[in-house]
């Protein structure tokens, strides 16, 4: 019994013409409107809202260093004598080649800008470059570079992408809620690590305590 019938039976005024709402008509339109907007929001719109674009301390040019200076990844991203990995090297590593006098060198504005900002007149570190790390993991994760690079013989670009071919750092998108880089969600979540362990026939490395000490 519809609302209309009841109203009629109660003698409430003139009878409306009954019409079935057709698909694509009033109600369904609302429904689909909601659905489509939500899908758009969930797939497209939230991205710029959730992610803040940040800039790196300075536009480090990997290509220039790899090709012009002939450096390999490991010459700056080093292992120390205890096997610890340096990650993004501290400014003092840059000073192994760059000196304050290089400011005079007019080939590179970027180099001059770097020296002005991060190096003192005496060639000491003025301030540390606070790199935004694309692959930064939470404190609860224990990761050993040496196990993967030396023992697993995995190239840097396999997990990190080929930074070596970049002329400037990729834009860094920071998730406003978690403060982690968007890049982690692409390729460096726990499932990505676990999948690779499985693929390379090392499922035992997926035990909890291997990474969560």
């Amino acid at each position, binding site marked *: 019994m519809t609302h209309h019938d009841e109203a009629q039976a109660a003698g409430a005024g003139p009878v409306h013409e009954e019409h079935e709402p057709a698909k694509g008509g*009033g109600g369904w339109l609302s*429904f689909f409107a909601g659905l489509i907007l*939500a899908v758009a929001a969930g*797939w497209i719109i939230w991205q710029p809202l959730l992610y803040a674009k940040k800039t790196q301390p300075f536009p480090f040019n990997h290509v220039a260093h790899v090709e012009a200076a002939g450096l390999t990844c490991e010459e700056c991203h080093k292992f120390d004598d205890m096997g610890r990995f340096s990650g993004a090297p501290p400014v003092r590593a840059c000073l192994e080649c760059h000196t304050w006098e290089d400011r005079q060198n007019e080939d590179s504005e970027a180099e001059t800008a770097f020296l002005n900002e991060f190096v003192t007149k005496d060639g000491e570190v003025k301030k540390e470059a*606070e790199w935004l790390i694309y692959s930064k993991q939470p*404190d609860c994760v224990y990761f050993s570079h040496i196990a993967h690079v030396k023992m697993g013989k995995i190239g840097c670009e396999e997990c990190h992408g080929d930074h070596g071919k970049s002329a400037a750092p990729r834009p860094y998108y920071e998730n406003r*809620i978690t403060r982690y880089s968007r890049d982690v969600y692409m390729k460096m979540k726990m499932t990505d690590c676990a999948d690779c362990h499985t693929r390379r026939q090392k499922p035992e490395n997926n035990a909890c305590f291997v990474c969560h000490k």
Partner: protein
Amino acid sequence: MKLDRRNFIKFAVGAVAGIHLTPLPWKLIDDSAIWTQNWPWVPKLTRFPEITYAHTVCNLCPGGCGIKVRTVDASASVKVEGLESAPVNQGGVCPVGAAGPQYQYSLSRFQSPLKRIGSRGSGAYAKVSWDEALKAVGGRLAELRGQGQAHTVVMVSGRRNSLAKNLAQRFMTAYGSPNLTEMPSQAASAEIAEMAQFGRPGAVGYDLENAALVLSFGCQIIEGWGSPVRSIQAYSGWRASGKTRLVQIEPRASLTASKADRWVAIAPGAEAALALGMANVIIRKNLYDQRFVGAMTEGFEAFKDMVLKEYGPRDAARMTGVPGEVIEELALAFAKSKAPLALAGKGKGGVPTSVYEMMAVQSLNALVGNINKPGGVILRKDLPLAPWPDLELDDQAKTQLAFTRLDLAGTDRHPVSGGLVRNLVQSINEGRYYPVNVLIIDQANPAFLGVDPGEFRAALDKIPLVVTLSGQADDTSIQADLVLPETSNFDGPVDVINPPTLPYPLFGSAGPVFDKPSVDARPIGDIYIGLAKAVGGPVQAAMPFKNHKEMIARTAAGLFASGRGLVAGPEGPASGFGASAKGRTFGDEGAFLKALSRGVFWYDPAFEFGGYEGAFQTPSSRFEFVSQTLKDAYSTWLKKKGRGAASALGVEGGPEMIFMPHYEPGVPEADEKAFPLLLVPVEQFKLVTSPAGNAPYLTKLLEDLTLKENDLVVEINPQTAAARHLKNGERAWLATRKGRLMVRVYLYDGARPDTVFAPIGLGHIGYGHYLRGKGVNPMEIVEGWTDPLSGQALWWATRANLTKV
């Protein structure tokens, strides 16, 4: 389409359905979880942490281990490891030392100088500045001195083996108070025995590593005795070489007994009887070293007569509960061993031992002539620290120092005693001689350890000003009115002098691990010097150093001047004892001090075995079976008491027994029907009884056999349990004449029947929630009796009973 409520709802439903077709809900859930990990109070690692290792001395016990402290960014210590180049421990570390960072960041550490604002023990304190605190204490001290009342300032100190002890003594003497009462310790009692027999208090060490047969009279060798890590490493060496036998003589199967080659189950406290029973066999069978005894000992004839008369096999067996054949076996093995060594001193150093017992055991060593021989008793060379300038006393000080000490140490009755805390407490509670106006607590916890902690707490009520210098909120310090906290060995300078049982002299010192202390504390030397300044006048003038660091540097300079010894260094492990190692030479004092600050330790392991020149400093220049030193010390007492001199001291027999080792049963008699058992307190490696207290890591290591939930667990023999219908783990009342405590029982075959073994170190009221209120403190119900020679309370057994709850 109308924008009405119905359409809106449909829109909403569509949106909800749609959103589930996207990754957004799951992403937001995941991100929210990660968001909770980043709340501001969650600690973060620094970006490029610099890891360094600082070398220092662990000072959680007087053992003198060298340690490496792993620090992050020079501001946080994260781990303690043993220092390989340290002579004492050579890279090893014990669980207490390893817990160093937990002591450093302990919640029960005083964060700054404090003034009490609530009632005593309430824990209500207000922060004050160092200037205020020093002025408050120094001002009161100056006032009292001016009124001729300097002697009413009492200090109770547990500090040993460091320069700060000497500084405290200097302070009190210059101030004019004779009342510096040391806490009782096994080392203090051993010093009396050593003075009596060798004339060398504090200079007796043992060449454990090279002994062939070690007879340990209750020493917990692998549970913290001596210098703990060194003792354990010596034991490991014995096992590795297979050349050394360990015989453990103890009433229960402790860890050490369980890992010894032989365990001899003896009645509690009968160690002296066993030693003299063995001496009886050795003398009767002519197995003693006649050359050594003839040339290097004094009083052998009187000793021999006494031993042959009183400690025959049947008598000794009766006194000790050890069968006569076993006593004979042990005696023969000991006398015939190539390198025999007898060790005295129950537990790990916190249980006061009868001086006569120690003398009896040392007599065994003298009989077999192992003194200054490889694997034997070593009379250590001196430590050539630079002497401090002479102390000039003003008339005030001289007058006030002449007052009788409240603890009666040094009086006719106690001529050779160090501090006697129990007498001090009695004097205060009974209002004897004069009242106490100020009590200074210096690295001591008498409200917890020692007999009658309740009496000590009652005595505090009679003292208007209680000051503590402790860094931790221990049971005594929480009763203080003013807190002037000292730094730890991580955030202040530290030194160690001659760790116990080491056969060679050793001095260790290091600067702080961090540039800034983690809390507003000061090095103890700075505190004493600051107090002296606040008191002013001759007390200030008596302090020859600007600060603690200078005290260490100027005193250590004497080591350079001596031209002897080695500075430990990074070049490798330390030289062994006896070796005549050639060390680096230093051009000048500055270079030496620099090397010392890097290497931390100076030591002199060179030793000439078999040489006795200057070794004995008794009146006869020999080992004295009958001690002339004691005779001289007790001469006034003897004159006063005549034939009754011995019994007035609690010694059976004629006066000559005062000067000779002998067995004294000791335990106060009580109704054996009401109290048929013996309560024997035992020490454990993992229970720290010093004021540092237990780090959470150590408390966590305790098994259910020691602490079950919050109940202390005591060991009893299954027979004893059965007679009381007690099952394993059940609760029981442990009662003595002094009161009762609730405990749980652990049925252990290795426990002597009719004896209750109760661990000491739990039952604190201080220290914060990690330790407070866990277990109970057996000292609350233990009864003490007086050791004749030291005057200390002995409490290694109390008559007790256990009843089911």
